[in-house]
């Protein structure tokens, strides 16, 4: 078992500072405020469940400024493996994105996660990304991922395509590289379909993760003898976008 760092309250402060920034930016006249509120049958985060395999509610807010700056936040009713009931899991983020004359766009920013009732899990990340047409790629770096004292780089590639009758197809492939403990590295993938109907977003996906030496898929992070397991789960999501 990994040793937990002392409770990093400064990370929690960072999370709420970013969410506060988004709320403050939302009041600007030229701000474009959007978001969604809804339910997911399981809140999977990079291949592991942060809701103990149970349904979770989520609310997200995103604010775009007129000059490329963006900020946002999210709160999810998650439940970590070590918890006996649901708790709020907060995310705040901010950054800058710009479209280039070629049509490609780039972004850079930071995000901070805070887990109510489990502050030892709080962590921050910096990210950079590129997007073109229906594809995007992003790299996230965390100096202390989920508070396990492990430096990680998470690489993700996303894509999508329009389908007939208003449906669309989407996919994601991601790899989390644990720089200090390679045994904690994992690959994950997501493939699904979605449809937007009058402000509602419906998503159905198959999520799979290849875990190396990890005992569970419910947020636990305990090492076991080196092995490789592929776990998959079907996830249904319904959200109202605004």
């Amino acid at each position: 078992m990994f040793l937990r760092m002392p409770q990093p309250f400064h990370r929690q402060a960072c999370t709420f500072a970013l969410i506060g920034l988004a709320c403050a930016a939302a009041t600007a006249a030229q701000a474009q405020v959007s978001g969604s509120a809804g339910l997911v049958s399981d809140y999977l985060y990079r291949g592991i469940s942060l809701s103990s395999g149970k349904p979770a509610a989520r609310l997200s807010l995103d604010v775009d400024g007129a000059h490329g700056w963006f900020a946002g936040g999210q709160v999810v009713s998650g439940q970590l493996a070590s918890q006996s009931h649901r708790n709020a899991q907060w995310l705040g983020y901010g950054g800058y994105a710009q479209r280039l004359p070629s049509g490609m766009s780039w972004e850079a920013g930071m995000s901070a996660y805070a887990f109510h009732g489990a502050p030892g899990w709080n962590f921050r990340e910096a990210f950079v990304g590129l997007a073109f047409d229906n594809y995007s790629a992003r790299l996230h770096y965390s100096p202390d991922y989920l508070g396990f004292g492990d430096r990680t780089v998470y690489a993700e590639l996303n894509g999508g395509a329009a389908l007939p009758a208003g449906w669309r197809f989407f996919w994601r492939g991601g790899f989390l590289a644990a720089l200090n403990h390679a045994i904690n590295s994992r690959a994950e993938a997501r493939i699904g379909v979605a449809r937007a109907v009058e402000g509602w977003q419906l998503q159905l996906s198959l999520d799979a993760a290849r875990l190396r030496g990890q005992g569970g898929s419910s947020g636990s992070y305990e090492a076991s003898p080196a092995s490789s397991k592929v776990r998959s789960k079907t996830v249904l999501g319904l959200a109202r976008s605004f």
Partner: protein
Amino acid sequence: MKPGLLLVLWLVAALAGWPGAQAAAQAASRAATEPAKAAAQPAAGAAEILVMLHLPAPHFRADGYSGASYRDDAGRQARQRIAETLAREHGMRLMEDWPMPALNVDCFRMRLAAGQDPAAILAALSRDGRVAWAQAIQDFNAQGGTGAAGDPLYRVQPAAAPWQLAQLRKAATGRKVLVAVIDSGVEAGHPDLAGQVALQENFVDGQSYVAEEHGTAVAGVIAARADNGIGIAGIAPEARLMALRACWQADGGTRCNSFTLAKALNFALLHNAQVINLSLSGPQDRLLQQLVGVAQARGISVVGAIDPARSDGGFPASSPGVFAVAADDAPRHNAQCLQAPGRDVPTTMPGARWGMVSGSSYAAAHVSGMLALIGELKPQLSGERLHEGIVRSSGPAPLTGIDLCATIMRITGKCSCACPNPSTDKLARSP
């Protein structure tokens, strides 16, 4: 239950029934349905304007909604709300929107109430921090009229002999070069155009895609099939056409406007056109000028027909870097003007017919075909370098008409016909 969880559940429940969210959804729904109801032309006395809102670049979002198309971005409802508010504040009616990522704007078409002064509203919008910019919708007109072995009509094609088309086809046919014809509808099933149209889209609201005279005629000049035993041979018979209907036949002419043309230009940019043919002309237009600028920055060649009735030749021909083309029987407009066959040109017509046409529209189509030929031979040459090589390098001697064979020889160093001028341009030696 923990307070945090209660907060989440309350917010979800509240937002699901939140009037703002419902209004946004209704607005989106209305905007989606309005185009079907909206006529191509505004009602008499009701002007229309375009209001541009900032379109953010795609970025990380917590909810991860990444649209599979540029019309499906997650922040669209935010802009819909702002547009609804603007329309309400100024007594306008929101008709539809069209995101234009190339310009970082979402373009909203709004209809003014009868009697409203567009200039006053545009001035007010230009001072509004929510608005990137706004402009009136202007009218544009196609620049050509229509009348009614290998290719039986080849011998009467005015470009056949002087441009040595038969010999040129041994060196280049425009193979796989994608030419966007932004015009009225093209008859893709015409026997001389069968298989030549790779993409077809309609951008005229309230109408479905129909084959029309001007678009079909322009398409034929550029890319009619060669050696098929019927009709004519296009200048670039193996080019691929993107038939983008942004104009419509009306009152004996062919009309377009800022919005329909902008949608088509945006589409051409998104689908990697290599040559954009605009056989039309009109007043200076900020939105169209910016889209043409983006096309040029991406290396696309843009061709415009000169309107002899306008002192500057009209937009887009008057725009720097655009291949401005007049018919070779018309007075040369200025030193940057190209002249190409534009009188009594046999070409394809709707109804599987052929007919004779005249005007700078068809001269422009000849130049688009020429650029497709060069594009096959020198695909790496940008439109800007081609413009430099073809137009600006022509020197002080007036061009009385393009010598296609010599031009291709000069630009590419390749020619299969008897070139009167064997000298080659530095572009021919470039990779």
